[in-house]
């Protein structure tokens, strides 16, 4: 049984905009959403980020609904609604009722935790809000998407730091391919702008105070972002039967773990993940046109990822277009890889390769074509989307332009 998996709906909320058209327009323009944090956080060294522009929760939810929605769940529901609507489905449709919803999150309901801990430890209060548990639990995003969209199939949240989105999407692919479900709503959500989390990232010393310049010689680290990316997946047969528009095919995936180091990337783990994705998608290295890189702009990641691409793709590495859209939407942790999958899907659909924004000067150890600063019109037949998380958790997804 070869059940091919199609992408038929997209949703996104990010610093680039509160829906997919604004997200894609900014990417095509090479516009970075990274800005000084306003207001700045007292006592925090991190001073820039990719924060949602003018997100008004009450434009999307009633106050009763908001009492149960941490910010990361709000973003998940908003992006999920868009993906479902974009796919031409609506709450109550049998296809949606029977669907799975699998959501990745790197950090879960941190805003709820923050309010609780501040009340307890700083204000010395003896009480916390009674809805703290249901609002803050990491699984809340899946529950809330299920509840708001009437999805009654398998639903849960999984976590693998910065690869959470890709792992969630791969889980959806696996469920569809195995015949468990015909339709899956997959993606990720993260909202990491809290005082406690910023202090923790400060301490790790990997965040830039300038901007995110992946693969540039003068890169100075990652820049945090927030948001949610969602994709509606279904079998080819199901999509065709209901006349759905097909953006692209999710042709394969590769997952590995490094068993190496809790933060340092590992070239062999990256190579094995990309290699497995190509094998799963029945692609040769020379058939790949574009890689949406993990590209965090840390010193270590960009060198390791470049070396892995060079070793696996050999001579074809220099024919590839490679870009990091984190330069524009920031590193939204678990949600990043879901946003990047949305970007990669649209690249194939529109025949436009996103640029690596903020690119300045080539690094001799990063010697490939990173599509600096300007998007490029080019038909993409096959693409990879890379995600390599802390702890050596690697997930690569292979996409193909759809053909019967």
């Amino acid at each position, binding site marked *: 049984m070869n059940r091919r998996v199609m992408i038929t709906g997209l949703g996104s909320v990010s610093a680039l905009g509160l829906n997919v058209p604004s997200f894609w327009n900014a990417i095509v323009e090479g516009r970075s959403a990274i800005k000084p944090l306003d207001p700045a956080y007292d006592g925090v060294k991190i001073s820039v980020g990719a924060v949602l522009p003018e997100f008004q929760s009450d434009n999307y939810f009633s106050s009763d609904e908001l009492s149960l929605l941490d910010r990361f769940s709000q973003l998940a529901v908003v992006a999920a609604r868009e993906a479902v609507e974009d796919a031409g489905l609506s709450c109550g449709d049998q296809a949606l009722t029977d669907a799975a919803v699998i959501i990745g999150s790197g950090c879960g309901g941190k805003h709820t935790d923050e309010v609780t801990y501040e009340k307890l430890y700083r204000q010395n209060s003896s009480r916390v*809000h*009674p809805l703290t548990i249901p609002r803050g639990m990491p699984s809340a995003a899946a529950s809330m998407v299920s509840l708001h969209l009437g999805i009654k199939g398998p639903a849960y949240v999984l976590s693998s730091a910065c690869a959470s989105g890709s792992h969630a999407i791969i889980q959806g692919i696996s469920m569809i391919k195995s015949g468990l479900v015909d339709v899956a709503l997959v993606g990720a959500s993260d909202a990491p702008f809290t005082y406690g989390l910023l202090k923790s990232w400060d301490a790790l010393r990997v965040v830039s105070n300038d901007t995110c310049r992946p693969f540039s010689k003068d890169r100075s680290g990652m820049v945090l972002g927030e948001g949610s990316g969602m994709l509606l997946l279904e079998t080819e047969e199901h999509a065709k039967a209901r006349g759905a528009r097909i953006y692209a095919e999710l042709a394969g995936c590769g997952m590995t773990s490094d068993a190496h180091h809790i933060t340092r990337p590992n070239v062999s783990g990256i190579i094995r993940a990309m290699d497995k994705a190509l094998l799963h998608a029945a692609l040769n290295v020379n058939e790949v046109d574009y890689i949406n890189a993990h590209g965090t702009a840390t010193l270590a990641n960009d060198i390791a990822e470049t070396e892995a691409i060079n070793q696996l793709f050999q001579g074809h590495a220099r024919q590839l277009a490679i870009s990091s859209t984190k330069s524009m939407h920031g590193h939204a942790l678990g949600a990043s890889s879901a946003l990047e999958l949305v970007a990669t899907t649209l690249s194939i659909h529109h025949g436009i390769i996103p640029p690596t924004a903020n690119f300045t000067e080539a690094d001799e150890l990063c010697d490939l074509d990173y599509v600096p600063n300007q998007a490029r019109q080019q038909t993409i037949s096959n693409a990879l989307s890379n995600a390599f998380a802390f702890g050596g958790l690697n997930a690569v997804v292979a996409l193909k332009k759809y053909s019967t």
Partner: protein
Amino acid sequence: MLEKIAVTIAKVAHCDIEDVKPDTKLKELGIDSLKAISVLFELEEVFDVEIPNELIPSIVTVNDIVQKLDDIRH
């Protein structure tokens, strides 16, 4: 005290304060079991008291809240 309680209930339940009368059942104000917990939380904050869990099942009307709070405070 009734007025203070009514204001708190109306705020949490997003209902008209005119509808919050002593014999009104909380369910009639759209307060389900989950929202009732939020109402009690707000009342604990406003009156600086602790409402024991065992009292909760016997709270049906607004007046039940008035009585329980009165007992707790004296």
